[in-house]
């Protein structure tokens, strides 16, 4: 089994496939977690999802993380906690109430916080908030740490800096993987190549990079206000998701999440930009995010920006991931286009890919993600 891409999806699939008896090699043009997995915010969260298949899958994915911890596959790579969606004015409050209702209808446990309860829970962190929805039973996982844990558990081979340039096929089946080091034979292929997936597919423009910039602060002082979990500004809901890739030529939207990390640092994000495909950050975006962050949580002004980074999410034309068999070769599968949800969905998708590839029926309904909706085929060069 050749898995192309050593991000969270590929590494999770490699883990489960190797446990299912496959002899797995993971190929990556870079190193482990060098794409979106290594520059993600790590939200294992349904708080920002809109009702539909993605929300249902996200709910299942959070439970899957809990299961991975319970079975010892993950140890302290997953931190369960609530997310707090915060409204700072009446307009945001209306959005908050509607959204909380939708989440509740989908079975997500929600606690609305107002008045004294609000002050009690997030008053110190966000004194200007007028209401918040505590989205319970969510968590955080650092993408590269999950992947590192899977690497340490082993059972498969990783080939770093080994770009797969194409495939050798015979009678409608892939029989080999072409790399700079030659052709290596294989029985099946899983493409978990994120933004690099377009190289392998015939359909142009299906997946586009959607850049995100994130800020890391230094550690909070021991006397600084307590943050019970990430604070998500309601405005994030407007920014997040359901923007088909490429709908606006040079758009950018910002949505504020202030995430207290276990180290005492804060991760402050983020942007969604269809402007360019370079992993660079600009001071204007960072300053805007920080102004919003300080407006919501004034105590952050005492900290320093220690790091700024950006990553490229793989956004599909219809805003939904692509998981399934690739047409034109019956032993090639693909799992890509997770945009901002790769860390949340990745491990479960890895498991579902394994089930699909083993001919079992996947334990979640992923028909909405089926690659067949785009009639995907391998690129001629591939």
């Amino acid at each position, binding site marked *: 089994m050749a898995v192309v891409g050593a991000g969270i999806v590929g590494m999770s699939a490699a883990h489960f496939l190797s446990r299912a008896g496959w002899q797995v090699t993971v190929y990556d043009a870079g*190193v*482990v*977690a060098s794409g979106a997995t*290594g520059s993600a915010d790590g939200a294992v969260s349904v708080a920002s999802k809109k009702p539909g298949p993605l929300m249902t899958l996200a709910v299942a994915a959070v439970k899957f993380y809990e299961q991975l911890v319970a079975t010892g596959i993950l140890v302290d790579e997953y931190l369960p906690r609530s997310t707090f969606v915060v409204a700072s004015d009446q307009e945001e409050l209306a959005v908050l109430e509607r959204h909380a209702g939708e989440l509740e209808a989908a079975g997500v446990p929600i606690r609305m916080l107002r008045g004294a309860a609000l002050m009690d829970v997030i008053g110190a962190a966000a004194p200007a908030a007028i209401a918040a929805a505590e989205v319970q039973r969510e968590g955080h996982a650092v993408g590269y740490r999950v992947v590192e844990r899977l690497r340490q558990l082993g059972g498969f081979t990783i080939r770093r800096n080994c770009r797969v340039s194409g495939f050798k096929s015979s009678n409608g089946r892939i029989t080999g993987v072409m790399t700079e080091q030659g052709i290596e034979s294989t029985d099946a292929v899983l493409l978990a190549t994120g933004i690099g997936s377009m190289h392998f597919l015939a359909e142009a423009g299906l997946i586009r990079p959607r850049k995100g910039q994130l800020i890391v602060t230094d550690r909070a002082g021991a006397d600084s206000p307590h943050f019970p979990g990430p604070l998500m500004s309601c405005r994030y809901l407007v920014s997040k998701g359901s923007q088909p890739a490429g709908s606006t030529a040079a758009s950018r939207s910002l949505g504020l999440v202030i995430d207290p990390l276990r180290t005492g640092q804060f991760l402050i994000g983020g942007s969604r930009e269809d402007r360019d495909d370079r992993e660079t950050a*600009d001071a204007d975006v960072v300053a805007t995010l920080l102004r919003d962050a300080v407006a919501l949580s004034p105590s952050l002004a005492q900290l320093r920006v220690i790091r700024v980074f950006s990553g490229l999410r793989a956004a599909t034309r219809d805003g939904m991931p692509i998981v399934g068999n690739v047409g034109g070769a019956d032993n090639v599968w693909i799992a890509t286009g997770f945009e901002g949800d790769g860390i949340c969905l990745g491990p479960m998708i890895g498991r579902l890919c394994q089930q699909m590839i083993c001919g079992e029926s996947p334990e979640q309904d992923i028909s909405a993600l089926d690659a067949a909706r785009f009639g995907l085929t391998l690129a001629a060069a591939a």
Partner: protein
Amino acid sequence: MSGPEVLVIGGGPAGVSAALELARAGIDVTLCEQGPQLGGAIHRQPNDATQSVRVPRSHKRRWRALSDELATSTVKVLYRHMFAGIDATGAVLLEDRMHARLVTRRPTALVLAMGAIERVAPVPGWQLPGVVTVGGLQVMMKSTGRAPDGDVLIAGSGPLLVALAAQMVSLGKAPVAVLERSTRPMSVSVIASLLAAPAYLWEAAGYLLTLARSGALPRRGAFVTAIVPKDGRLSVTTLDRNGRERQTLVDRVALHDGLLPNSNGTTAGQHAPFIVRAGDCREVLGGAAALADGRLAAGAVLAHLGQIASVHKGAADALARERQAQAALNTLFDYSGRDPAELPDETIICRCEGRTLGQLRALLTAGDPVSPREIKLNGRFGMGACQGRFCAEWVASFVASQRDGSSPPQVSEIVGSRWPVKPVPISAFVTLPPSSPSE
């Protein structure tokens, strides 16, 4: 003044020299210095002119000439302005500590003259309060004009050890000991090479004479193996060249294992200005070379601007001479530090986050050629506030020593090239005007 603006970062000899050369050519130059005064580490001026540290006369002359010319030049000096990096749009970010704000500039060219990085090889206890770099102690002495309080032990390798020790003696306090790791002898060919830049020989002779008179000559082949706190002081375990172990109780330990160029902050993106590095920041050749290198950097900027620079034959020759002398000097020292195999697992490697050698070793035992990026992310080496300045080079060479040499990690892969190159207060960041046009 209108026309292209050039920004020079760093108010040491290289930066001042570059700025003056550009100003002479009629260029609009702004010099940014992170501290409240110019001079860099080498020409750090005393807070009180009546109390000053002994420095070679040539150093004094050099700085006097630079500061006199600067005073009457058109160079604009910004004090307490920290260079924070260059963003994706090519904006140069400066943290203005005078006004607690962040400002952006869009210069045509940028000269980075931020000085060297002082190297200290890890040893158990090097993270304790009271343990400082030799350069750090020297800078403090130069500005206060006083010898440090308490008993001081100086260890490591390099000419800076004797310089510090002699300056202490001149201020009336000899160090408890000076341990020079190297046992490499002075050869005829080294002396011959040093004769190309005899100032070094005179300087060294002066220092050694001072130390000989006070009985504080360096003990060659001796080094520190551990430092532990004891009764509010520091107990230092040392080994001499005959393998004899000794405990010494002191108040301060000054460590130094050479100097490294500083490549932080040179993110030459597609929108970035023309960037030149100058002085020890580019190549560690010392103060005399920094002067020449500043002029050469300015020449490169002028050429970029389409101006015909005056011929810098003299500067290039001076640089070549200093390079030869430094190479000869370096053969006398041993910057290797303690053999990692002799270091216990508890040894702190990342001084910002307290990450240990044991944690680094654990990342490498898997029999999988883990990449520098993975070492950085999972081991957190190079992710602390100093941005890897004090661990990345050591981690890279340690990882290389544990491998067969097929893929030695690059320091840049651990440090990265992102801005900010130094942490920036959020309170300063939020002052940046939205979508700010350049100032």
